[in-house]
């Protein structure tokens, strides 16, 4: 114990303080520090902190009472802010009325709807499914906002209480708006704390998350409780969004990013401690305000002050105590016989992929009524982009699909890979450097995973998100990293085995071959002891550790592998886009879409990566249809599919957590000549369907006569006898 702190906490605090001092000394702007400016900066910081505290409060309330960490909290705020703008500014409603309609009616309704339709069913789902679904809701809400309120009109949300008048503080003043918002945020946090700790409903809320059945037996109503939580969380998000919009401007992406700050604040309270979460939010607010006022990071680090939240998250993660090893969860949708692709099946599959690519792009296929012809440069561009996406998606298969760990930063790793390649290969484009890129990206992946790997999976997910944001705020904008702003320097064409892949079709075939090789390597890996071990760790960390498997180290290794794959994929992506500047497009939202699509496709199966070709494919198809004209509805349909497709597909995971490819495989495998086992399985399932299912021993409802026969037959006390009258329907 040092100063009453546990050693890791003390270490993290010390590191953070040292970093802060060094950064402050080297970037001091030189503006005079007066009591006045200090005071003004401080209250701006506290005000910002109060707003973030509101978001964080919503997160913590929902997490402590339902066990689901809501990534969509920020997006709910975005939606509410736009709706408020629509009602108040566009339709001229009075601000109080608009506020009441949005926060008092719309937000709780949205919360309850989310709970009833989706969240309730996530209770026993794996962390991957839980997170994917809330991220999908986030992406969907943002897409809806983008569709309804198009970005071309400038919008402003006015301050709720006016910013002109306030308490006089000498030359400047503290506006009422900010004072009231601060007080409201603190009051809400106190009220929520009181609600959770001191009231009957609050106790019930916390009880339900611990043991739903037991709480229900003691008179709590789990469904009512979780609906209340979601309604409350949604209201807090909405209020936060409306109050913060005047400060940040009404831009969906900016407003949504507030949620990362809220994550850092919530993590400060270990995701459950409300007062500490509020303290964390205030701390981030103060740091932001004061760094903005006193420090100047220069043009290379012009976004550095925005990265305070991710950095705080990092330090919190280092300081958190080691979690107890997670015990296993019940797995759903298991088949009696899981079957892994055999090595020769993988070989055939990859051969088919390559042949299909050659035939399609060369225009060898003529479908009779429709001869697509050889691909032109536009098709090839779309296809190359698609395959680069698919390659990035593959990097998630061992990580999310097998080890059950989440990575929201595949694009950050890809961008890092592109950077490394640019520095290594320079203008030559020598393809052999790509292998070294993989080797250099692996340690970065390990480094990101290391602090959080000993904690619960949720922290790793948050950590990767913070990492992605820090990369795009600090790393990629630096002029040395990607030194080409404005000039448009081209990525060199890749050269391998003495061949320069400078034409689009050649490059397409190269990237398809790399994809096939990666898929095949994954097929082999999944059959190997490593694939087995990673799945075992995902199933039960406690049991794995008892067998002597180093759980934390295993997770770190899988992250390193995933980062290496993403880095290699990044080289191809950068080469497809050609221009180095595009690496800055490696941002979080596109990353989310990649993760979502792979998850929805069925991330445990290597070939799931191929689903990612749908994003560029639909865009390309849309262009083609626009050229032919007269198919407006089809173009619209494709646009809708591109925008909403990933999110909607992921919502399907609520019911089918194993993804689309898995189901497709079930349908397809009986057609393969050597899969008599699959045909037998289908036959057995059909036979079982004909036998009526014996219900929950009549607890949920009385037995029907058919069920009575089925039970009797299974007990062996009945051959084939007509059921007696009234035997099974005693109640009626």
């Amino acid at each position, binding site marked *: 114990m040092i100063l009453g702190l546990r050693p890791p906490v003390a270490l993290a605090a010390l590191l953070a303080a040292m970093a802060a001092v060094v950064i402050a000394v080297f970037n001091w702007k030189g503006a005079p520090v007066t009591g006045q400016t200090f005071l003004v900066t401080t209250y701006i910081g506290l005000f910002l902190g109060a707003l973030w505290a509101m978001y964080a409060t919503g997160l913590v309330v929902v997490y402590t009472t339902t066990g689901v960490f809501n990534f969509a909290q920020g997006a709910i705020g975005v939606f509410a802010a736009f709706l408020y703008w629509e009602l108040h500014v566009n339709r001229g409603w009075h601000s109080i009325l608009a506020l009441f309609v949005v926060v008092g009616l719309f937000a709780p309704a949205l919360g309850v709807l989310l709970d009833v339709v989706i969240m309730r069913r996530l209770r026993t789902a794996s962390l991957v499914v839980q997170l994917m679904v809330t991220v999908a809701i986030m992406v969907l809400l943002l897409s809806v906002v983008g569709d309804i309120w198009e970005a071309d009109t400038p919008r402003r949300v006015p301050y709720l209480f006016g910013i002109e008048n306030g308490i006089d503080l000498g030359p400047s003043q503290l506006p009422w708006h900010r004072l009231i918002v601060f007080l409201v945020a603190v009051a809400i946090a106190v009220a929520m704390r009181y609600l959770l700790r001191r009231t009957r409903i609050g106790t019930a809320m916390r009880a339900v998350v611990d043991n739903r059945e037991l709480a229900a037996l003691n008179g709590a109503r789990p469904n009512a409780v979780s609906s209340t939580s979601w309604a409350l969380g949604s209201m807090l998000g909405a209020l936060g969004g409306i109050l913060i919009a005047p400060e940040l401007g009404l831009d969906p992406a900016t407003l949504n990013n507030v949620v990362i700050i809220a994550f850092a604040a919530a993590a400060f309270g270990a995701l459950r401690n409300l007062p500490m979460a509020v303290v964390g939010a205030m701390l981030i607010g103060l740091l932001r305000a004061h760094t903005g006022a006193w420090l100047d990071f220069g043009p290379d680090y012009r976004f550095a002050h925005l990265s305070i939240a991710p950095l705080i998250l990092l330090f919190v993660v280092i300081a958190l105590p080691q979690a107890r090893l997670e015990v*296993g969860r019940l*797995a759903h949708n298991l088949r009696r016989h899981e079957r892994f692709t055999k090595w020769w099946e993988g070989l055939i599959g990859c051969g088919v992929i390559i042949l299909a690519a050659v035939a399609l792009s060369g225009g060898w296929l003529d479908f009779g009524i429709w001869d697509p012809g050889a691909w032109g440069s536009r098709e090839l561009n779309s296809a190359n982009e698609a395959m680069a996406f698919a390659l990035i998606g593959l990097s998630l298969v061992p990580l999310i699909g097998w080890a059950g760990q989440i990575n929201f930063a595949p694009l950050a790793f890809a961008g890092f890979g592109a950077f490394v390649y640019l520095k290594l290969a320079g203008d030559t484009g020598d393809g052999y450097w790509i292998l070294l890129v993989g080797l250099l990206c692996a340690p970065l992946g390990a480094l990101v995973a290391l602090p959080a790997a000993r904690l619960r999976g949720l922290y790793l997910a948050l950590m990767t998100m913070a990492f992605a944001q820090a990369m795009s705020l600090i790393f990629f904008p630096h002029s040395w990293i990607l030194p080409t702003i404005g000039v448009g320097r081209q990525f060199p064409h890749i050269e391998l085995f003495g061949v320069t892949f400078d034409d689009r079709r050649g490059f397409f075939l190269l990237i398809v071959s790399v994809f096939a090789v990666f898929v095949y390597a994954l097929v082999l890996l999944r059959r190997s002891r490593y694939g087995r071990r990673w*799945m075992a760790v995902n199933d039960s960390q406690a049991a794995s550790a008892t067998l002597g498997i180093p759980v934390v180290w295993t997770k770190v290794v899988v992250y390193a592998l995933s980062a290496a794959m993403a880095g290699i994929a990044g080289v191809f992506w950068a080469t497809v886009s050609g221009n180095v500047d595009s690496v800055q497009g490696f941002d979080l939202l596109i990353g989310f879409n990649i993760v979502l699509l792979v998850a929805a496709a069925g991330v445990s199966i290597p070939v799931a990566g191929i689903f990612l070709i749908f994003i560029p494919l639909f865009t390309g198809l849309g262009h083609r249809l626009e050229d032919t004209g007269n198919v407006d509805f089809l173009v619209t349909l494709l646009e809708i599919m591109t925008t909403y497709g990933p999110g909607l597909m992921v919502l399907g995971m609520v019911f089918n957590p194993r993804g689309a490819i898995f189901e497709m495989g079930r349908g397809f495998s009986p057609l393969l000549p050597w899969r008599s086992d699959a045909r037998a399985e289908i036959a057995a399932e059909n036979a079982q369907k004909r036998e009526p299912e014996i219900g929950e021993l009549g607890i949920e409802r009385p037995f029907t006569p058919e069920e009575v026969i089925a039970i009797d037959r299974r007990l062996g006390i009945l051959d084939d006898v007509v059921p007696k009258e009234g035997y099974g329907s005693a109640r009626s």
Partner: protein
Amino acid sequence: MALLEAEHVVMRFGGVVALDGASVDIAPGEVTGLIGPNGAGKTTLFNVVTGLLAPTSGTVRFDGADITRAAMAKRSQMGIARTFQKLEAFNTLSAFDNVRVAVEKNRRAKWKHRRVNDVAHEMLDKVGLGDVADVTVGTLPTGSARLVELARALACRPRVLLLDEPSSGLNEEETSSIGRMLLELVDDKGNDLAVLLVEHDMSFVMGVCARIHVLDFGQVIASGTALEVQADAAVRAAYLGGDEFRGAYAGVGQ
């Protein structure tokens, strides 16, 4: 000479004292029982011994060496294996793969480079699950999944095997076959194996255990042979009550 000793182990969770200075020792070549009412601290003791929990105070010794703070991997390497009361099988893997994961981890150190598949099949056959080797464990009935855990623990080639209620979910016949198997395992001098058994099935415990420790409110209130424990007044008062005990009496001493 005891192979595994837990000495004066105290485990506090906040205000709750789960283990209050419990001392237990187990010797090779026999099955030792650990009984006690629900909440007596049996599973907590298992967690302390295997390293899932670090005790508040006290010592755990294995073969004379202090392993109180040793890493779990180290303990597994030394030869401590266990099963769980709440199932912790690898649900998405087949029974065969569950065992293979354990064999692969211990192949070099414990199995003298024997073929992984051979060892895994041998372990599954030993617990009688040879027929369902390819079945996904999450779809097996509870009793069979428990046997998978047992096979997985045996695949670590343990010197100390901790079994947490292995008979729950099994029928009488399966239970007695587990009992026979345990006795065979400890009787085989080549194994040099010690078994610690937590059980609620009294006739099972009394039938296979050479010695029994009785745990109550985190303290060991009695230790000895089945007969001695049964005769102990404190045990009767704290736990056995009477009827349950008399029924089990018939199985003793076989």
